[in-house]
C-alpha cells in the first residue's frame, strides 16, 4: 500500500489525470502532422475514438470484476476470456477459411463474438453459482482451467491450420489500433454506453459490494442479483474491447491498480473515472510513443504487456495478492 495518511482530495487527482489524458490526446492528434489537416484529424480521430472506447471498457470491466471477487490481482482475463476470444478466431478461420471470414461484415462478426462470450460467461456463472457457497473461488479456478483448455485447443487448431490462414489469425490475436472500422466502432460505443447507463444506477451499491459478501448482505444489498448483473456487464465490456482490438491482458490490471493507488477514495464514482482516465492516458500515450519513437515497429499490446507484466510482478512482490 502507498503510505499516506494525508487524504488528498480525489477531485484534484481526477483533474490531474484528466489533464494528463488531455495532453496525451493533444500530442497524439498534432505531433508530426504533414499535409492536409482535415484528413489527418479524421484519420487519427478514428483511432483515438477506438482507444477511448477500449480504454473505457477495459478499465471499467476490470474494476467491477475486482469489486465482485474482492481481489485486486485477478482480472476478467482469468475467467478465460482472452483465451476464448483466441479460440473463437482460430475456429472461424479454421472452419470457414480466412478469405470467407475476411468477407464478413465486421459488425456481424462483432455481434457473434459478443453473443458467444456473454453466453459463455453467464452459463459458466450460473452453473457455478447453483453450487452454493464460496463459489467465486471455484469460478476463478474453473476460469483458469478453461483458459488453459481454450488456449490448448487454439494452439492445436493453429498447428494444423493452413500457414497462410494462420497469419490472419496471428494478426487478430495481437492487439492493434491500426485498423479501425467505423461501423464496428459505433456499435461498440453504443454497447458500452448502454452498459454504463445501467451501471450508473448501481454506483453506490458497488461501494457496498466491495465490503465483501457478508457485509453487503448485512447492509441489504441483493448480493446474488447484483453479482449476476455485474458479471454480465463485465462480460459485455470485455467482449467489446477484445472484439475491437484483440486481447490486452495486462492493461486492466495496470490501470485498475494505478487508479486505486492514485485516487484516495473507496467510491466507485471516483475510482472508475480515475481508472478510465489512466487507461486513456496509457493507451494514447503508448500509441504516441509507438508511432513516433518506435516508428510502428511493434504492436501496442507488446509494450503494454511488457509494462503490465513488470507491474504485475511488482504487485505480487509487494504483497497485494491478499
Amino acid at each position, binding site marked *: 500500500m502507498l503510505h499516506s*495518511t494525508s487524504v488528498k482530495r480525489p477531485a484534484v487527482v481526477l483533474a490531474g489525470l484528466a489533464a494528463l489524458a488531455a495532453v496525451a490526446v493533444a500530442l497524439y492528434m498534432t505531433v508530426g502532422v504533414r499535409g492536409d489537416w482535415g484528413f489527418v484529424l479524421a484519420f487519427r480521430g478514428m483511432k483515438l475514438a477506438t482507444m477511448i472506447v477500449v480504454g473505457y471498457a477495459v478499465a471499467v470491466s476490470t474494476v467491477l470484476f475486482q469489486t465482485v471477487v474482492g481481489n485486486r490481482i485477478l482480472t476478467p482475463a482469468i475467467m478465460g476470456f482472452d483465451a476464448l476470444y483466441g479460440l473463437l478466431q482460430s475456429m472461424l478461420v479454421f472452419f470457414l477459411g480466412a478469405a470467407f471470414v475476411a468477407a464478413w461484415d465486421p459488425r456481424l462478426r462483432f455481434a457473434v463474438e459478443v453473443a458467444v462470450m456473454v453466453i459463455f460467461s453467464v452459463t459458466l456463472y450460473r452453473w457455478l453459482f447453483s453450487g452454493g457457497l464460496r463459489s467465486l473461488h471455484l469460478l476463478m479456478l474453473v476460469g483458469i482451467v478453461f483458459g488453459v483448455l481454450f488456449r490448448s485447443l487454439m494452439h492445436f487448431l493453429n498447428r494444423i491450420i493452413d500457414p497462410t490462414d494462420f497469419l490472419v489469425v496471428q494478426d487478430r490475436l495481437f492487439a492493434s489500433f491500426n485498423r479501425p472500422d467505423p461501423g464496428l466502432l459505433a456499435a461498440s460505443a453504443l454497447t458500452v454506453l448502454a452498459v454504463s447507463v445501467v451501471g450508473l444506477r448501481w454506483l453506490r*451499491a458497488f461501494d457496498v459490494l466491495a465490503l*465483501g459478501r457478508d457485509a453487503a448482505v448485512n*447492509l*441489504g444489498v441483493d448480493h446474488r442479483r447484483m453479482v449476476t448483473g455485474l458479471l454480465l456487464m463485465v462480460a459485455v465490456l470485455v467482449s467489446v474491447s477484445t472484439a475491437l482490438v484483440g486481447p490486452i491482458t495486462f492493461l486492466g490490471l495496470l490501470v485498475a491498480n494505478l487508479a486505486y493507488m492514485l485516487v484516495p477514495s473507496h467510491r466507485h464514482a471516483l475510482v472508475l473515472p480515475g481508472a478510465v482516465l489512466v487507461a486513456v492516458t496509457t493507451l494514447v500515450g503508448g500509441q504516441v510513443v509507438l508511432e513516433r519513437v518506435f516508428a510502428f515497429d511493434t504492436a501496442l499490446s507488446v509494450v503494454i504487456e511488457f509494462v503490465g507484466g513488470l507491474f504485475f510482478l511488482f504487485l505480487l512482490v509487494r504483497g497485494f495478492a491478499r
Partner: protein
Amino acid sequence: MIDVKNVSKSYGPSVVVDDITLRLPAGGMISIVGANGAGKSTLLSMISRLLPMSAGTVTVHGLDVTKAPSDELARRLSILRQDNHVVSRLTVRDLVAFGRYPHSKGRLTEADRGHIDRVIGYFELEPFADRFLDELSGGQRQRAFIAMVLCQDTDYILLDEPLNNLDIKHAVAMMKLFRRTADTFGKTFVMVLHDINFASCYSDHTVAMRDGRVVHAGTPADVITPAAIRDVYGLDTTVQETPEGRRIVHYYV
C-alpha cells in the same frame, strides 16, 4: 422477538445445526456459548440470512428472513461475523458511514452524519476516525466494525465474537456499551461469546450449545452452573458468586 423453528444445517452427511427451536425475547442481551464447532456461528449466520438453512424457518420481528426483502431486513437486523476483511481502502469514518446505507442508500443526510459522529464518539474512535483501516491494530479495527453495525441502528444486533482482539479494558467497555444501548434504546443483542464470564455477568439470557443442539437455555443463573458447564464443554470448573450476586466461573487451573 426472534423465532427459530426446527432449523437445521448440514453439509452432506455432517449435521452442523440439528433441529433447533428457540425463541429469543426482544430487548436485552442474549449470549450463545458452547465449545468450538458446536454450531453457534452457523446458527447466527442462518438467523441473519448470511447462510441458507437446510431446513426450518427463522422470523425476526415477524419477518421471514429468507423471504423478506433484504433491504427491509437490513433496517431491522444487523450482523457482524468474525474475521472481517475489506479490500477497499477505507477510513474508519467511511466504514462507519456504511452503516447508514440501508437508510439513505449512500446519500448521507444531516441526520446520518449526526449518527455517524455520535457512534464514533461512543466507541472513542475520534483519534483515528480519518485513518485507514489497514493502518489500525486488530482491536481498533474490530471496534470500527462494531461501530459500523451499531450505526446501522437496527432493533436486533447479532455479533459473532465481538470481543475478538480486544484487550480487557476495551472488552469491558464494549460490553458496558452494549448493556447501556440495550437498556436505553430497547435494542436486542445476540452474541456468540467465548468468555463464559462475560456471558454470565452481562447477559439476560444465555443459550448453551453442543453438537448442533441447544443443551441449556435460560438466565445466567440457570446456565452458569458446574453441572451445565460440564455438559457443554466437558470441563470441571467451580462457580463462585460475588457479593453483588454475579457468577464467576474458574476454569484456568
